[in-house]
């Protein structure tokens, strides 16, 4: 059987591969930035911006747009790639990432970059801000959805649980948190640094509805995000992912949280991603 959605999935899968290649090339070129956590949320951001979110790239401040908060702000490179491909700003901006004078800051900056709805960087604040946005939308009688992407290490921050409690109390509707659950943070695995086991039960105990899914499967993400959006409770999608996904020697390695990509590593990574670095 061949469906229109199958073709869409193939297109978006190809886009993800392209963005992985561009990410590796970009981070190699600028010799700074976070590869691991960017690669793990590639399909999540792609599904959001290309299939789920109601946005107008030509009018980034459109009042009725869906909001997105990248609470794990260090994944900014993948968000910038996604926004550029979606048409929020020219691809030519990308090589300026993290350089002085750029509109693409090391962590998301709402007053410099079209399409960034909230400045982030210090971890543990994004869910609170997203809740404020969702409540404002409800007060205004607007119909937008507020999406927020959390890192799994990030939920060690106490503020996340303050926000989780408040979301249950004020229950704005149309608030979906997505957990990029790759199991690895800067200093090691979650288990080594600070265990966050039984995540679903923790959030359920805080009154959230929890939706597990494969965070690298676009069809599964699309279907799960839609169900989460329809929930009457605050909704958490636990997206099972792999840190460094797509590049074998980066996968699951905390060392690749924020390591510069050398020439040799870039070459190996691109070969794995099916690009002949020496061609052209």
């Amino acid at each position: 059987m061949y469906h229109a959605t199958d073709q869409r999935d193939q297109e978006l899968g190809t886009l993800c591969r392209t963005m992985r290649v561009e990410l590796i090339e970009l981070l190699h070129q600028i010799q700074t930035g976070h590869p691991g956590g960017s690669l793990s949320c590639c399909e999540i951001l792609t599904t959001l911006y290309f299939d789920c979110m109601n946005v107008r790239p030509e009018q980034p401040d459109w009042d009725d747009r869906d909001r997105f908060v990248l609470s794990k702000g260090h994944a900014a490179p993948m968000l910038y790639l996604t926004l550029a491909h979606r048409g929020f700003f020219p691809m030519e901006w990308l090589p300026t990432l993290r350089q002085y004078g750029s509109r693409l800051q090391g962590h998301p900056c709402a007053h410099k970059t079209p399409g960034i709805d909230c400045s982030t960087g210090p971890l543990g604040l994004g869910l609170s801000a997203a809740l404020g946005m969702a409540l404002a939308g409800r007060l205004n009688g607007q119909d937008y959805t507020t999406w927020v992407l959390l890192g799994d290490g990030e939920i060690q921050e106490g503020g996340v649980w303050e926000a989780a409690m408040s979301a249950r109390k004020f229950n704005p509707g149309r608030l979906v948190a997505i957990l990029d659950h790759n199991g690895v943070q800067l200093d090691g695995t979650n288990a080594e640094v600070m265990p966050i086991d039984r995540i679903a039960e923790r959030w359920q105990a805080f009154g959230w509805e929890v939706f597990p899914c494969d965070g690298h499967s676009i069809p599964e993400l699309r279907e799960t995000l839609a169900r989460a959006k329809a929930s009457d409770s605050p909704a958490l999608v636990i997206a099972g992912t792999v840190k460094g996904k797509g590049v074998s020697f980066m996968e699951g390695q905390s060392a690749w949280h924020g390591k510069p990509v050398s020439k040799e590593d870039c070459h190996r990574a691109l070969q794995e991603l099916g690009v002949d670095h020496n061609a052209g």
Partner: protein
Amino acid sequence: MPDKVSIRDVYGAALKKLGEQEERVVVLEADVGGSTKSAVFGKAFPDRYFNVGIAELNMAAMAAGFAYAGKIPFVNTFSVFLTTRASDPISSMIAYDHLNVKLCGAYSGLSDAYDGASHHGIFDLAYVRSLPGMTVLSVCDPVETEKAVFAAAEIEGPVYLRLSRAEAPKLYPENMVFTPGKGILLREGADVSILATGLMVHHALEAANRLQAEGISARVVDLHTIQPVDRELVLESAEKTGCVVTAEEHSIRGGLGSAVAEVLAQGRPTIQEFVGLDSYTESGAYGTLLSAYHLDAQTIAEKARIAVQRKKP
């Protein structure tokens, strides 16, 4: 002595009045609404009132979210907790993106007297004054308090409004003009300028009376805006009197005294004496604490005499 009025009662009433006029105002509170009087707004507008419980960081970051979506959030808790527990989103979101958030620091200075050092708000100005684009207001009487609430809502961008738990006599007529960034000359004088903020303004006026009896003519200024401080008025005062005393219910480091010293150092190096705190504090009756920590008319007058003396060759 004129009747004293509760600053926080005036604040609560002003917030409610503002809520009637401005639909975009939402109010956030961290379980001290009965103390800050934000609950007065909450009773009138339950749909626009968000008591987040004892979670100041979440409160400030939620306020950022409201502001990103076009609301005008007023954020309430004690000044000490607002500027410590919630300092992260205040810096990384609210000030960084110049969001339209109004941070209302209640119980500032020593006004939560009996609760002791943990509840005294004496370092708040140093923090908020370091944030680019943050307007910092500090009011001294009921009329100024109400005007400041409305002025804060008018300002496009982040504002810190410093409030006291204490009662204060009415100093200003109802028709006074409150302009953020413009200090108020309360009394002309030739020998020394006393630049005060918050409730210390009343002590400054009393000190000026005492000094007059000894033949020292003191100029008194209410610097209700600490950022941006009224540079012109500070320089004019220094020019006219040749020495200044700053008076504040705050650490002598980082608050009004520092703001004035920065202006003078660049514009007109001038003899300056500081009235403020230089230590941690203890529990006690408010009046007792003000005397114990030298935040009173007697100390201001003493520092004024020293400043005048220092002018002599």
